Every structure is written in structure tokens, then in C-alpha cells.
């Protein structure tokens, strides 16, 4: 795409209102003249966005751009918030798909609350470039689903070339991956170990939280005693520490599940131990308990159309997202795949094919997943004050012939199709 400094272009672009440019401004970028899909306040035809220091400063039919601002011409293009994916294994299962790159499932105990995805993210995963070429700016990287409690997730912004510390979404809540159904019971059942049934799955979960509750009680008792009387502190246990943080509401549970009965069993456990579930992941049968999910204000991140690949996916239907949305639940279309992550906008369009409304479809890949990750105050819509994470499309994002032309994270161009993007995008061009 064409980018210019606006110095000599003010008159031409008619967007540099005099008088307002004197304010102390840092790095300024203007996205000019595109159709803006704001998510929260409709679509603005021929609108512009002023970005200053990585944040959206102004948005509207016109903006007051300071001299020297970099201008990105987006006439005829479609501009939307950067896509957010609640379910990615980029880095923990990096390409190529070989055993040496398989770091998502610590398969030695079904409770792995002590492990963290952040300790295994391969930043050289070529899938990162492809995700950026798909307009994705924020992802949650999760451990796999071989364990009942798979470990801590990490929410990152896709900043190519940065260290992981620089990529971690500052201020995002911690997350915990949990998994029910066939995957954990197959992993351990095939070894003749617990869990080999759904009963065993839930027992492992309850037992883990019971231990965490006891652990918390031990620490509480120790802290309540007068300092002189305390005696040695209880031993620290990394697994139980994470789980007691879940009980304290400091870590958001994201639970892989498929069948309706698994969801109901999960709700029983959450009620028994008093924790809140942030999102159900995959949740192909969530439409069967849509009202209950909406009542509990639990997010559902699902596929648009994948189904039938295992028994628990046999009742998966592509209207899942549409039914949930109609029942008042917050729904996201997720990828769980370094393939789908490149075309989440197309996946959302397929969800529309099966009944999801356009506004909901747009939310399902932006604001709703941001909400599930606890960062909807920062990203997920084109609103003043939010991070300038933006995707610019050649056509309407739900048109099958569209392509992402440019992706920005915090106002910086991280993908530009016109600039020999093939290298950055691992060949996606």
C-alpha cells in the first residue's frame, strides 16, 4: 500500500485542520479514507483514523492530522480492528510439525497447572508471519488439550522481531487452559492411567481444586497468625499456587470442551469451588445450553464449521455461533490452527452463511475474543484511546476475494503485502 509523509500533502488530503496540530505529539500515523468497521459504533464510509504513539487519538469522517504524520492511503479499502484469536498454539507447536517442535502437552500428569506456555514459545515459528498476513494482532497461546489442566496460557501481541517479553500483552490477565472430554481421557486411558473416562476427567479437576482450596487455607492460616507465632511458611507448590489464583479470580480459566454434558459437569465444579469460567473453547455443543451460558456470562470460542472429526464433534453444527449469539451469549470464532488463523475473517463469513449477523460476525473476531481474554478495554474496536491494532483489507473482510493488505500493531506497520511481504509471511505474499 502507498504510504507517504503528510508534510506536503496536507492540502491535497484536506485533513490537516489548522490550529490543532500544535499539541505535543509523538509519532503520528493517519489511515486515510477507508471504510471503517468500528465494531462499537457502526461503519464509517470514507473515514480516517489518527494514531498517536500507538493509540487511536481520533476517528471519524475527518481527523486533525499533525504535519509530518505518516499517511496510509486506504481509499477503497476496509479498515477494521486487528483480529483477536483466543485459541492459538503458535510457538508451542511451531512449524514444521515435527516431534522436536511439539511443546504443547506436558504429558506426565493430568494436572499441569504449574507449567506455562510462555516458557515454550518459539518466536521463529513461520506461522507468526502468516497470522499477521491474516490481520491477526493479538492471540492467546495455550498449552494443548492432552491434560485436564494443561497449564498457563499467555496473551501476546504479534510484534515481529520482538522478544517474548516485549510481545506479552502488558496488563492482560493470566489464563489457565483446561480440557475435558475425549482428549485427556484418550491420552491417559491409552496408558491405563487416570483419567480414562469422563468421570475420571471431572474427578481429576475436582481433586485439583480441592487441593488448591486446602493450600489456600494453609497459607491464609499462616498469614493470619501473629508474626512471632507463624512458624515456617507452608511449602510452595506451583500447581496449587496457580489454581488458588484461579479461586481468587486472578487467573481466567479457558476450558476446552465439546459435549453439552461436559459443560454441565464443568459448571457443577465451578459452582462447587466458586470460580468463574472465562470461556469455553471449541464447545461444539454449546448451542444446546446457550441460555445457561448466557446467564453465566461465559464466552464461547468456537469453529465456524469444523465438525465430525471425533465422536464428541458429531453434533457440532455451523449454526453454533449464530444460536449462541441469538441467546445472548458472547461468541468468538477461534482458530486452534495456524491455518485457520490466517483467514478468521473468512471463517466469520462462513458463520454468517449459517446465520450469524454481520455485526456479530465482526465482533466474533475482535471485541468478543478481547473480552474473553480480559483486554476489551484495550483492543477489539476502533475507538479513541484504544491500541492502534488495525487490519486493512482490499475488500470487505467477509468477501471471499478479500486480502489483508496491511496490519498494524500499536500503530506500527507489522505487515505490508506490497512490500515483498513474502519473507515476513513465510511465503504467504
Amino acid at each position, binding site marked *: 500500500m502507498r504510504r507517504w509523509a503528510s508534510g506536503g500533502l496536507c492540502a491535497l488530503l484536506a485533513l490537516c485542520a489548522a490550529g490543532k496540530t500544535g499539541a505535543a505529539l509523538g509519532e503520528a500515523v493517519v489511515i486515510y479514507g477507508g471504510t471503517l468497521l468500528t465494531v462499537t459504533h457502526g461503519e464509517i464510509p470514507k473515514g480516517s483514523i489518527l494514531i498517536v504513539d500507538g493509540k487511536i487519538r481520533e476517528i471519524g469522517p475527518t481527523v486533525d492530522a499533525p504535519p509530518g504524520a505518516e499517511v496510509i492511503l486506504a481509499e477503497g479499502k476496509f479498515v477494521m480492528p486487528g483480529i483477536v484469536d483466543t485459541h492459538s498454539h503458535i510457538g508451542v507447536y511451531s512449524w514444521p510439525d515435527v516431534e522436536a517442535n511439539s511443546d504443547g502437552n506436558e504429558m506426565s500428569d493430568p494436572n499441569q497447572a504449574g507449567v506455562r506456555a510462555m516458557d515454550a514459545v518459539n518466536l521463529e515459528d513461520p506461522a507468526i508471519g502468516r497470522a499477521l498476513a491474516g490481520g491477526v494482532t493479538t492471540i492467546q497461546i495455550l498449552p494443548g488439550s492432552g491434560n485436564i489442566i494443561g497449564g498457563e496460557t499467555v496473551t501476546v501481541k504479534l510484534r515481529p522481531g520482538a522478544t517474548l517479553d516485549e510481545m506479552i500483552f502488558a496488563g492482560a490477565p493470566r489464563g489457565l487452559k483446561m480440557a475435558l472430554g475425549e482428549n485427556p481421557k484418550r491420552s491417559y486411558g491409552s496408558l491405563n492411567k487416570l483419567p480414562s473416562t469422563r468421570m475420571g476427567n471431572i474427578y481429576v479437576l475436582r481433586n485439583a481444586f480441592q487441593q488448591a482450596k486446602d493450600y489456600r487455607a494453609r497459607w491464609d492460616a499462616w498469614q493470619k497468625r501473629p508474626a512471632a507465632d507463624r512458624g515456617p511458611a507452608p511449602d510452595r507448590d506451583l500447581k496449587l499456587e496457580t489454581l488458588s489464583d484461579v479461586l481468587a479470580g486472578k487467573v481466567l480459566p479457558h476450558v476446552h470442551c465439546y459435549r453439552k454434558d461436559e459443560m454441565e459437569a464443568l459448571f457443577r465444579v465451578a459452582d462447587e469451588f466458586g470460580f468463574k469460567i472465562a470461556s469455553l473453547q471449541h464447545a461444539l455443543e454449546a448451542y444446546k445450553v446457550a441460555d445457561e451460558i448466557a446467564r453465566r456470562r461465559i464466552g464461547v470460542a468456537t469453529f465456524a464449521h469444523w465438525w*465430525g*472429526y471425533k465422536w464428541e464433534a458429531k453434533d457440532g453444527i*455451523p449454526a453454533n455461533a449464530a*444460536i449462541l449469539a*441469538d441467546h445472548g451469549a458472547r461468541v468468538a470464532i477461534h482458530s486452534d490452527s495456524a491455518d485457520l488463523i490466517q483467514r478468521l475473517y*473468512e471463517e466469520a*463469513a462462513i458463520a454468517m*452463511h449459517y446465520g450469524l449477523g454481520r455485526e456479530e460476525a465482526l465482533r466474533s473476531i475482535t471485541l468478543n475474543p478481547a473480552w474473553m481474554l480480559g483486554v476489551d478495554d484495550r483492543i477489539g474496536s476502533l475507538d479513541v484511546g484504544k491500541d492502534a491494532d488495525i487490519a486493512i483489507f482490499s475488500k470487505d473482510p467477509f468477501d471471499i476475494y478479500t486480502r489483508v493488505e496491511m496490519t498494524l500493531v500499536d500503530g506500527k506497520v507489522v505487515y505490508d503485502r506490497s512490500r515483498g511481504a513474502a519473507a515476513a509471511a513465510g511465503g*504467504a505474499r
Partner: protein
Amino acid sequence: MSRSRLAIALTAPACLLLILAASPAPAPQPAASPVALVGGRVFPVSGPPIEGGTVLIRDGRIEAVGKGIPVPADARKIDASGQWVLPGLIDSRTHLGIWEVDLDEMSRDEDERSDPVTPQARVIDAFYDESENIRVTRQTGVAAALVAPGDGNLINGQSALVDLSGGDLDRVLLKFPVAMHFSLGEPPKARYAARNQTPSTRMGSAALIRSTLIQAREYLAKRDVYDRRVLECETGRPGRSKGRKEERCPPDVPARDLRMEALLPVLKGEVPAIFRAQRMDDILTAVRLAEEFHLRLILSHAAEGYKVADLLDSRKIPVIVGPITTQPDRIETAGALYENAARLHDAGVKIAIQTGQTSDARVLPWEAGLAVAYGLPWDAALRAVTLSPAEIFGVADRLGSLDRGKQANVIVTTGDPFQPLSHVRHLFIRGREVPLRCRQDDLAEKYW
């Protein structure tokens, strides 16, 4: 079930099973009434689009296509104005009917894992015509599909082309065998290396295919000698050196080998060889093997096909590309590009598009759309899911375009079939309207 058998079953329900079991062959279906699809934007594929055209269907075939065609009095008239009328789509490689649930071995029959060489495996012997996957797939306008064996062996078996109207295999079978399937690259070598068997390398793969084909050639030669001897004996013109064992009349009958026999039509060029190959060197190995044994080569997958597009064009080797979404997620697909289909087409190669799917083959039109987004001309994409596969599979006399005399596989859509926001409104297979509803709709209705 045919209407006549249904009538009997309704009058005497208890006899149903007996009657079905006793039926020697499917009763001929009563002729459907003619159908006229009027006023749509018609895409014959074999010719330019016709605005406000009519497609007339009679006796399962297309009777007429054009503008201002009179609608017969006995025809069911469907107003297609504002809609698009196209040939039913063809998915050039699926595992529909032979592979139900990925993670349930008992529901999978696509890959005979006992031996790297299984040319005798025939998909028609494992085709489950009641598969819900078929009903799901046809919802997006897919009217026919190649049902191919899996690619875990070097020689995988024989594929069939079926329509997706549902029902007995003998009704839905369009062609068998369509091709003998071969597989190069990672899948066979991964499987057999884990067992310390050949092939555990690409060298081993090529060597085992070569030795198998040489064996089949020798088998063919022996068969020819035997046939000649039978003829000589019958015509009373015995060979020169009388009395030797091989000269007896009638000659000893050689033992038959179904594995070898399956390869004979391939060696004779009667049945094409579809080679799965991703990496450029695997593609070149397929070309080399095809040349050595004079095989009618069709390439499948071909993630790096664009690297040898000119070579494939010069040898007129068609390519069943895809899926378009093939990723550089494996070592052998490190060069995968969304633009592969477009680049092959630009070089002049005839392409067809495959999903390689079973439960989710409904994505075929969106795969085609993605190829268009990455450079394939729209007309070429439509051809790659209609007429080109019909030509590649040798059924273009019956399928693939809206032309007089062809089988009436026709879809009526609300718009561009490659757009997710379009919907299929009518699907005709062999001139009969096929229901577009599937169990997923029942579930949605129940819980919406």
C-alpha cells in the same frame, strides 16, 4: 428406495426387510417430470454466461440451455431470476463414505495399512452410502466427488467417482475405477519407517514402486504368453518344440494375483495413475516413474507444483491441486503457496481443486474462492470444480457443464457460489431435486 418398493413396504410393513433383501437389483426409477430453470444467470462453463437463460431438464438429462427456450407444459417451472444456475460442483478428491470419524479407527476404511503396496484395494468395497457427511457436503452445491483411498501406502488402491444424491452405490456410482492412486513423500515413509520396513526413504519409495510395476509387467507378459498359447491350442497351431511343459495343450493355468491384475489396466494406459506428491523432487519422481512405465499421469496435491509448472504444461500433466489452504506446516510442504493454483493455471496446466476432506468437504466452493483471491481467474476456478475434473476423470461426456445430453447435475444459487454469503437454493442430481437439509439443520432447529 424406489417408489415402487416403498409402496409395497407401506402396504405390508412387516415384509419390508424381506423384500429389500430379496431385491436382486434396484428397480428402475420412475422418470421425474421435466424441470425448467427460468430466468437465471446461467453458467454453462463450456460457453459464456447467459443472462436470463433457461435450463431445461428432462429424463435426468439436460435437454436445452439458452435464452428464450419454451417451457414445456408438463415441466415444473422454477423461477431462477436473480439467481445463478451452474453445473453441480465436483470435488476432485475426498474420502466421503469410506472415512467417517477421524479419531475412530473403526469408522475408517480409506487406508489398508497392512502393506505399502495395495493396488487391489477398491473404495467401492467400503463405501457407506448413508454417511451424513454426504448430506452435509452437498449443501454447498457439491454434486459429485472422487472418493479416493488414503495416502499412507505407496500404491493406495482404486478410486471411484460418485454423485452425492445418496442411496445405493450402484445408483450413485459414476465411474470405477477412475484411477490407481500412488503416494510419494512423507506419509508412506513415515508409516513404514516406524516399522523398520520399506519404504523408509524416498529412495525406497521409488524403488518399491518400480519393482512392483516391473513385477506387474512380467505378470502381464506371462498372461500374454498364456493367452497366446490358449489361442494356439484352440486354432490347432501348436508351437515349434512339441512336448515341452510350456507347450502342452491346453496350457497350465497360471496362478492369478489380484494385486498384479489391478495394475494391468494402469500399465496398459486404460486407467490413469494419480500420484500424490508435494515437494518438487517428489513431483519429478512421479514424472520419471510415469515416463518409465508409460503411465497416464495425473498429479495430486502438488504443493510445489508452481516450481515445475512449465514442465507439467509441456507434458500435459493435469494437477488436482489442493487443498488451496495447504500450509507450510510440514517439511514436504514448506513451499506451499496460496497462489499455487493460479501459477499452474497461468502456465497452461489443467487444474482441478480438491478438498481432501470427508466431514468438511462442504468447503469446496470457498476453497475455489480462496484460489481466486490469490490470482486464479474466476472462470478458471469454476472450471476447476466442474468441467476440468470431468475431463481429467474421463466423464466429460456426461458431467461438468450445462450442455444438451449431459447428466443434469445443476445448482441454483443466490449468487456467486464461491462467496460464503451465497446459498444454494436447489440441487439437481441426474435431473432429480435432492434435499438440501441435513441432520445439522434438525439440531439447529431444535435448539435455536
